[in-house]
């Protein structure tokens, strides 16, 4: 790895570890101090490595510097003497002896505790994702703003509010008690699922960033699987779903960042290793008696790893969507079920049901109707696609819709 790539790379992997360990030591109310120490460590690295060249073991160097900076902070900051050191029950005079444990075990434990704190139900979903990206994944403010298609100020305010809320609610950085683990884990999975989808379906054109978002969501989910108390079926199901979706990363984006639809993708670009991992996690997920929405979504995604159409495949997908809707209704699932219905029972039956959904505010509703009307009533198809074009925010969707409308209007469209 080139020297100029090393610091960004290490920042991505090590910043969040250092922050997690320090934060779980200091408490969430002092998260800014933990972040400052971590940032300061990287600032030192960039200055000193630039002058003296790379140390032999850059990670160990970062940990040593971070520990020293933390100890100095503990020694010199009056706030710390009064607030934290007292709480921690350390003798301020002997701050040198404070153990700042950056062992792999403690890094993992701290990160796990941080996941639970960040995904606390007291914080709004959007803020959770932002906070997760910042403190768990080490993303910069401008990257987070880019992922959300919004400005840095908005993100800064959102993060500030989330941190204030964490303080106000006095949320502890610890594993939730046994009795709460189930419901808290559910909240964590929901956030990780959103984080993954934010990357996978983001309207942002920055494909590298979108991939990073997805891989970070997968890394955090894997962290839960590697811990015995959180290695539960629903977690495995979620990671399985993520693996199946991520397997199509290379195939779903063209050279210029344009979206390539599922049916037009080059199958040889599908990552078979990830598909295999997905199947593995799905089989782990089937131990036990709980059936989460992630199980069903993973099962649907598993069906899609084979592109050949068959009656059996679409019957399966149709019933899985029906099941999903019974577990938790969502407009997206209702629209997807209508598409599966078209594949399994024909467009006419699907059209009759799709029209009843009346999800007229959703671009996807009009995209679906456009698709179903194609070949039956092309004028109506065009009209729905134009409505969708006006509703969608995604530039990738816009490009695909414009292309399809042009073909339909010229009479050259083949579905």
């Amino acid at each position, binding site marked *: 790895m080139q020297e100029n790539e090393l610091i960004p790379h290490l920042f991505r992997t090590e910043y969040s570890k250092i922050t997690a360990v320090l934060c779980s030591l200091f408490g969430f109310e002092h998260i800014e101090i933990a972040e400052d120490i971590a940032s300061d460590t990287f600032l030192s690295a960039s200055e000193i490595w630039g002058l003296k060249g790379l140390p032999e073991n850059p990670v160990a160097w970062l940990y040593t510097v971070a520990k020293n900076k933390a100890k100095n902070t503990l020694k010199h900051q009056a706030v710390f003497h009064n607030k934290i050191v007292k709480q921690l029950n350390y003798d301020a005079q002997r701050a040198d002896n404070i153990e700042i444990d950056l062992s792999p075990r403690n890094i993992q434990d701290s990160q796990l505790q941080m996941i639970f704190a960040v995904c606390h139900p007291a914080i709004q979903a959007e803020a959770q994702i932002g906070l997760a990206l910042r403190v768990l994944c080490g993303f910069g403010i401008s990257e987070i703003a880019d992922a959300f298609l919004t400005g840095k100020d908005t993100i800064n305010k959102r993060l500030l509010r989330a941190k204030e809320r964490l303080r106000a609610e006095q949320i502890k950085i610890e594993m939730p008690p046994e009795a709460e683990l189930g419901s808290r884990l559910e909240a964590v999975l929901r956030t990780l699922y959103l984080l993954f989808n934010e990357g996978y379906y983001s309207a942002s054109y920055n494909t590298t960033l979108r991939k990073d978002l997805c891989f970070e969501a997968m890394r955090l989910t894997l962290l839960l699987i590697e811990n015995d108390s959180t290695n539960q079926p629903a977690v495995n199901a979620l990671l399985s779903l993520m693996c199946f979706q991520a397997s199509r990363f290379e195939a779903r984006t063209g050279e210029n960042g344009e979206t390539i639809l599922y049916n037009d993708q080059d199958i040889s670009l599908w990552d078979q290793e990830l598909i295999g991992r997905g199947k593995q996690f799905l089989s782990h997920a089937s131990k036990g008696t709980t059936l989460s929405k992630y199980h069903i979504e993973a099962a649907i995604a598993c069906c899609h790893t084979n592109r050949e159409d068959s009656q059996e495949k679409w019957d399966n997908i149709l019933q899985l*969507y029906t099941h999903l*809707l019974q577990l938790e209704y969502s407009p997206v699932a209702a629209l997807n079920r209508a598409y599966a*219905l078209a594949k399994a*029972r024909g467009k006419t039956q699907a059209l009759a049901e799709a029209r009843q959904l009346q999800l007229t505010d959703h671009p996807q509703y009009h995209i679906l109707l456009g698709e179903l009307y194609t070949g039956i009533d092309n004028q109506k198809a065009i009209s729905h696609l134009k409505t969708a074009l006006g509703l969608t925010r995604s530039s990738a969707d816009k490009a695909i819709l414009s292309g399809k409308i042009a073909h339909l209007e010229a009479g050259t469209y083949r579905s």
Partner: protein
Amino acid sequence: MKNFLFLFRADQFVAAKGSPEEMQATTQSWMDWIGSIAAQNNLVDRGNRLNAAGKVVRPNNVVTDGPYTEIKETLGGYTLIKAASMEEAVEIAKGCPIYKIGGNVEVREIDEM
């Protein structure tokens, strides 16, 4: 939104007479119907199918097999849905596959009081 109970009644012997293929088709049409209710966010509980065998307990400890008083209208199952009005509930009930075998759906609003 109010909740409504669908009670499915049919002649159980007609229902049982189909070939395996016909039974498969029946199962599928029921699943599709329940699915379309769920897709419109009108499903509360898919409910259960009831076994044909049963007993009726009457006053004075009288227990009889049954209820076979009206064999054409055996209660075969129930589903709980939600709808804005009785009219909407009835519209949903019209999609039920039970009419193909001469059965019927009784639609009853659940009294929440």
